[in-house]
């Protein structure tokens, strides 16, 4: 069983929901990323989604675009991101790490080399925003062979046939994008999300995590109620931007954001 499946199964057994924060690797600077990952875990993260910076993040709003730019100013490369995961693993072998990014940096490294290095570095899952399963027939088997979970997106526009097909290509969990739009936008409608996620649950046995538009504890709890986990990104990245010159203050600010979410999610269990 993969580390991701293990964690999600354990949570499920306890009636709890996964809290999955996203940050961009190398933001605000490469030497801070590992410490920030530990901060996320201390504040209640179950799984970490670590963004691989890309020059042209087409699916992201301004907040994560700027995070990519900050990381790329320091030349943060995919190879370096894998090095950060390796360092993180030296002191945390429990928390799954999912790399989330765009295809081209992986293609540039070479898919085989990337899959090998990702596995060796302690990465657990790969989510490639611009890689639908239709184009993944070269890449996905390389991940599967190394027991890396391939995580794909579902969206409000995904038809039932595609939900089934995509789930078949996925392992670990599926990521439901809560609304039509880019990261960081406002637009989540909890009732609509509830309906669609319930429907997805009927079509696949995989856990469903929901991301986009979750910025506070109340929304996290509302969405957690109807799903297996919540992904929180732009609000954290925004916090990083606002506190980039003061690591101590940043740590506190991130904790102050995540802690109430953790409590609200755990409140659902009782």
């Amino acid at each position, binding site marked *: 069983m993969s580390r991701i499946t293990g964690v999600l199964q354990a949570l499920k057994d306890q009636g709890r929901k996964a809290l999955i924060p996203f940050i961009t690797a190398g933001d605000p600077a490469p030497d801070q990323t590992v410490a920030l990952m530990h901060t996320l875990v201390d504040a209640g993260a179950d799984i970490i989604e670590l963004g691989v910076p*890309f*020059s*042209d*993040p*087409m*699916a*992201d*709003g*301004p907040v994560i*675009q700027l995070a990519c*730019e900050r990381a*790329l100013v320091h030349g943060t*490369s*995919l*190879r370096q991101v894998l090095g950060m995961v390796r360092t993180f693993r030296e002191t945390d072998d429990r928390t799954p790490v999912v790399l989330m990014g*765009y*295809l*081209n*940096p*992986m*293609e*540039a*490294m070479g898919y085989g080399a990337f899959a090998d290095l990702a596995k060796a570095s302690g990465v657990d899952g790969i989510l490639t*925003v*611009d*890689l*639908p399963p*239709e*184009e993944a027939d070269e890449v996905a088997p390389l991940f599967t062979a190394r027991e890396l979970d391939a995580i*794909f*997106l*579902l*969206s*409000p*526009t*995904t*038809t039932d046939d*595609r939900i089934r097909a*995509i789930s078949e290509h996925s392992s670990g969990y599926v990521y439901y*994008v809560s609304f*039509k*739009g*880019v990261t960081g*936008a406002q637009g989540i409608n909890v009732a609509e999300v509830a309906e669609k996620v319930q429907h997805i649950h009927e079509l696949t046995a995989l856990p469903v995590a929901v991301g986009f538009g979750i910025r506070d504890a109340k929304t996290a709890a509302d969405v957690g109620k109807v799903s297996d986990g919540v992904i929180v990104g732009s609000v954290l990245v925004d916090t990083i931007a606002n506190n980039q010159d003061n690591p101590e203050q940043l740590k506190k600010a991130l904790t102050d954001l995540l802690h109430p979410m953790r409590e609200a999610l755990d409140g659902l269990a009782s």
Partner: protein
Amino acid sequence: MSIKLTDDMLSMLPDTRGHFGAYGGRFVSETLMDSLMTLEREYLRLKKDPEFQAQFDKDLADYVGRPSPLYFAERLTKKAGGAQIWLKREDLNHTGAHKVNNTIGQALLASFLGKTRIIAETGAGQHGVATATVCARLGLECHIFMGAEDVQRQSLNVYRMKLLGAEVHSVTGGTRTLKDAMNDAMRDWVTNVDDTFYIIGTVAGPHPYPLLVRDFQSVIGRETREQSLRQAGKLPDALVACVGGGSNAIGMFYPFLTDESVELYGVEAGGLGIDTGKHAAPLSAGRPGVLHGNRTYLMEDENGQISGTHSVSAGLDYPGVGPEHSWLKDIGRAHYVSVTDDEAMAGFHLLTRTEGIMPALETAHAVSYAMKLAAEMDKDKMIVINISGRGDKDINTVAQLDGIKL
């Protein structure tokens, strides 16, 4: 290495997943997949629909002013001292470039699909103007995304778009040029996918865009083929077109792909010189990667980050290229070469002074290369240059580069 292409082979490209050999495809986030699949299905249906095609042909004739002439450039030919040089006059189209062939087609598609809001990216502003134009004509809401740097250097076209009723969004992310405009257009599309049609301006983007833009632009090559046979009594020996995303070039090349005797030359922007790294010539100096929904030759660094580009012409200032060109390069059917900013400027002045035709700076790249090519060819040979657009929009840039204050 060159293989002989047949109509049968071409009819299978792109394949059902939008691939031209190793290139093309559909690399987008999930939210857009359903729209792209609907667009593909509807387009393949309409492609065979006589009513749709008749409307398209009628619009090209009555609104765009097609066919555009094929003109023998006698003085230019003398100057080059070799092959006969002919000009395919896309600059005479309504709005002044080949771009309108495609926007007419896509706007028609949008209407058939019942979409009421149009978005487009633009570099030089020609595609933006062509899009704003068809939107004005059809009464559609129009949003144009344009890199902040291009808004500066193509201010005339920005104003034209506004006069036509379009809203122009200045894009300040990334390198502030065409690729960033395309990123923001994609972001808008994913947000407003229900009522919005994205009119992509070149043969790039996810499947089916490279297919449908090529089909709409192929009218250039079809006419050129017919006109060559009628006016010169033979097929040309070489075709020359500039390559940004590659739409005017593929439109010219496509109807000639199976004519083995016709050599194809795509001219990329060499900027300050290929070895300076400051250029926009992915086919000449890049390698395959994935950007904007398709796999194709790209300008990127060793870590897979897309490189900044440089060209004197905003319309060529793009780090990628249509996937069909990548395929044509690999199979050796077309040659891809580059021309520097300075050479293009010389080409601009040359065509203006010898023929009284002021080309767009994009087009000037093709003119410059064709002069070299013609000089090496025998006098009984024939070259056609695709004059993709007129130069009015570039007057400010030309004056500035020549050190003249207007």
